Every structure is written in C-alpha cells, then in structure tokens.
C-alpha cells in the first residue's frame, strides 16, 4: 500500500485551477521529485497535502489516514514533515531550540506535565537535546547551536530548517526546493543529505527546479503543468519525454 496517496486533488484560486485532478502515489522508501514550470501547482499540491490549503476536491491519504481536511499540526504529528520554499525558522529562538520545538510536540503534550517539569518530561528533553546536537552536527551547524536562528546566513538557515524537519524522525519528508538559491557547494551538500535519507529508507518527495539535482537523485519524476500531471516515470524517460520538453521550452 502506498504511504502517501493523492486522489483526484483539485484546488482553485479565484477561477484559476492551480491543481487539476492530480493523482499521486508514493511508496514507502521512494525518492520522488515533483517538477514543472513556475506556477504549475507543485507548491500548491504540497500545501494541500500538509493542511496549509483546503483542497476543493479529491482526497489525501497517508497510511490510510484521511488528511484532506486536517490542519497542519495534525498532519505533522502523523509523521509528515515539510520544509518551506521561503526559508523558515524561528528567528528569536536559538538554533538548538529551533530543533527542539520540532520534536517536543511529538513526545508529549500534557501541559501540566510541562509546567511542573516531571521527571519524564525532563528525560525527554535531555534526549531531544542530544538528538538536536547530533542533527546540528550532521548539517555542520554544531558551532551555531546557541546562536539566534535569525542571525544565521541564508544557507545556514536552510540547513537548520532541513535539520528541524528531521527532528521528529518523520516517515515522509516533503522538501520544497531544498537546492534553490544556495551556492554550488551547498547544493552538493544538500544532495548528499537527501541521498543519505533515502539510503536510510526514508520516503522523500522533492519539489525542485534544479534539473541536475532532480535527474541525479530521483527514482521517479512527476511532471506538472498548469496543474495537471503530464508525465511520470524514471528520470531518463522524463528527460526525453516530448510533453515535458514542450511544457518547459514550448513548441
């Protein structure tokens, strides 16, 4: 059974159909890329899946749970993590705290336990700090643990947001343009990180414009144009697909 299943998803914006009856199934452990020209509906699709936009039709299923009208925090707690195209961090929290926020809601949420700081909550906190330090180390930000996230460079914030998404050990990771607007070294770094996740058996869906990255790492590529899915297949086939070439370059 597919981990994520999108069935006939429709989203309109003031008469424009941004997502037009899209079907998409992602199997556990897959690394899928979603590509398409600007405005083809990739990010809108992400937003509908993660509860940031209400779909006008169709269904989103994750491990059999219906996510179609679930708010973002519920989607997140079911094990779907996402990053944002515009790099998004909590600027006034430290880098470490940014990561901690992403795990704590998954661990416990009893408000009174949090207020009185029961032994269990303190132990969970210690574990969370340990995990956060490991992830900061992984993305090369260990030295910045106590720096306010707002003081980091653009690329560092991007890595921080990526590490934060990994904090709760999500089953499905939706990455919105992880390689956009960063330097070539960082792009390679990102690519390695994503491949490492894939090797660990994690399921990743990627929205990306950088074709080198997409063709290099994806197992399967899904192409959207004007909200419709126009092609789907392994990178090699997509590269030669006449419909894709037409969508990108025109006739």
């Amino acid at each position, binding site marked *: 059974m597919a981990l994520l299943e999108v069935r006939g998803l429709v989203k309109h914006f003031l008469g424009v159909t941004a997502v037009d009856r899209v079907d998409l199934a992602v199997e556990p452990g897959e690394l899928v890329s979603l590509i398409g020209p600007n405005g083809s509906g990739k990010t809108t699709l992400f937003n509908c899946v*993660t*509860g*940031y936009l209400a779909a006008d039709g169709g269904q989103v299923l994750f491990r059999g749970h219906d996510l179609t009208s679930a*708010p*973002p*925090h519920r989607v*997140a*707690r079911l094990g779907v*993590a*996402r990053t*944002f195209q515009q790099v*998004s*961090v*909590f*600027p*006034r*929290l430290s880098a470490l*705290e940014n990561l*901690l*926020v*992403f795990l*704590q*809601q*998954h661990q416990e949420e009893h*408000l009174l336990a*949090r*207020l*009185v*700081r029961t032994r269990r*909550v303190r132990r969970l*906190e210690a574990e969370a700090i340990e995990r956060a330090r490991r992830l900061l180390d992984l993305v090369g930000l260990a030295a910045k643990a106590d720096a306010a996230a707002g003081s980091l460079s653009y690329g560092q914030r991007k890595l921080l947001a990526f590490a*934060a*998404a990994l904090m*709760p050990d999500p089953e499905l990771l939706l990455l919105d343009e992880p390689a956009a607007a960063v330097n070539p070294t960082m792009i390679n770094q990102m690519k390695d990180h994503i491949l490492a996740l894939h090797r660990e058996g994690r399921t990743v869906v990627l929205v990306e414009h950088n074709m080198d990255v997409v063709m290099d790492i994806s197992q399967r590529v899904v192409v959207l144009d004007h909200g419709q899915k126009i092609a789907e297949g392994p990178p090699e086939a997509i590269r030669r697909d006449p419909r894709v070439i037409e969508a990108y370059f025109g006739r």
Partner: protein
Amino acid sequence: MRRAGWVVLGVLVAAAPWVVAAVAPRQQRYIVHVLIFTALFAALALSYDLVVGHVGSLSLAHPAFFGVGAYTAAILATQFRWPFLADLPAAALAAAVVAALVGVPLFRLVEHAFAVGTLGLGLVAWIVANNWVEVTRGPLCITGIPKPTLGGLAITTLPAYYWLALTALAGVGLLYRGLTTFRLGRAFHAVRDNEPLAGAAGIDPRKYRMLAFTIGAAIAGGVGALYAHYLSVMCPEEMTIALTVNLLVIVFLGGVGSLRGVVVGAVLFTALPEVLRLAPTWRLVIYGALLLLVVVRSPGGIESLLRRASGAGAAR
C-alpha cells in the same frame, strides 16, 4: 557578588514597610499604599505580558477580565458572605471562563482585527458594569467589601496587605516563569514568531494562544479580587481603557516578554506618577516626556537598557 545584590534587594522589598517607617514615618501609609498598587500592577502586567509578549496577540481586553474577577469577588463577598479564600479562586475561574468563551470567536481574527475585537470586548464589559445596576450597582459601585482573612488571620493593616500583594506577585512571577520557559515557553514563542512553521512543528497555534489568553485572564481575575478587597470598593471606572493604556505602557516600556522588564516597568510607571506629585503642575508633562525619552532612546524598553548595562554577552 551578584547573588548578594539580589538577596539585599529581596530583603529590602520584603521589609519595605519598616524601611519606609524608619525613613519617612509620616508618609508611611501613603508610600505603602503606592507599594501595594505597584505589586498588584506588576502581577497584572505579567499576566498581560503572557498574551502580548509571549504569544504575540495584542489583546486590549485585559481590563474586562480584571473587572470580571473584581466584581465576582466583590459580589460573592458582600452578598453571599463568601470568605476571601473562596472568592479569590472563584474570581480567577470566572475570568478564565469568560476568556475561554470569548477566545473562541476572537482568535478567528488575526492581528489588528484581533486587537479591535478585544477592544470591543473591553468596552462591552465596562458598559455592562455600568448599566447592569441590579448586579453591579452601576456607578454607585459595590461598597463595603470586607478586608480579606486567611484562615484566622485578618489582613487589616497596610503592611499586612502589602505582604499579601507581594506574595501574590511572587506566585504570579513563578507561574509566569514556568509558562514562558522550557517546552511551554518554546511552543508559545514558536507561535508568536512564525505561526505557519509552528504548525509544521506539530504545534496547534490556536490552542497555545487560547492557553495564554485564558491563564492571563485567570490571573487578571485574581488580581482583580485582591484589588477589590484592598480598596473595599469596586467601581466601573476601574476597568476602563485607561487601564489598558497603563498596562501597555508598563509592558512595552518595561520590556515585552521579560519578567524583569515588566516588573521594573510596573515599579517605574506606577510609582513614578506618584513621586511626581511633588511637582503637581508639571507632573503629567514630566511623565509624558519620560515616556517619550524611553521610547526614543530604547525602543526595546527598560529591559534592553538593563541588558546593555549588565554587559551584552553576560546578560540573559
């Protein structure tokens, strides 16, 4: 060294009535009265800062919760002869219930609309207090609210009331710290700083906003009860927009989101207008000029001045 400084400050604050009696015996009543007001205002401002400073919702409805608490305590104590230790929690609970009820529709509004919505609530509460004469006695005020008793201990003297208010402030301060640090504080701050991202982190923004709003209201209601018992009179004028302005001044010029800043703000902006009575003609002019000075010189409030003073890196 630093620790010693805090101990000295703590002793001075706790012993303030005696210190005042020694330094200015003839003015003791008046000065202790101002100190009681300061402690109550500090507690109220901390409860307000939970909402404005920590979840970033600019509520203008705080006087409504203060008033609900004050009137609840006043009515229970005068009409139903409830003891202080019972009407205090009832006041906090009543304010919290009102907040939970109005919070549901209010938090569907965002930013400016939320501020205006809460302003409306504040005005409605004041109008109700003024016109629901059968219950609140309207502009005639509820009078004869008894002095509180704790068990067998009657709080009748000004110093005793000062220590009661100080204990309340300490309790509110502890609760404030517990709520605004560690995991709860982090969740509040995540909602304040980046709501969409907080959602992606699994935080339900509305739940945390409601939590801060309701707890803030409960504390305000409790402070209202203390206030009504202290003055022994409760009038609708105690819950006008002027109170909101006072709270805004204390919180924003003291230091939004900071325990120390808010308390220092409460001390300065409650005591200062009184000190300035020495120059009655120029009192409000000087007060206004000082407000301007703080805003211009230190937009982050007194707290950011204190931080700079105690060394940029070491402070926090």
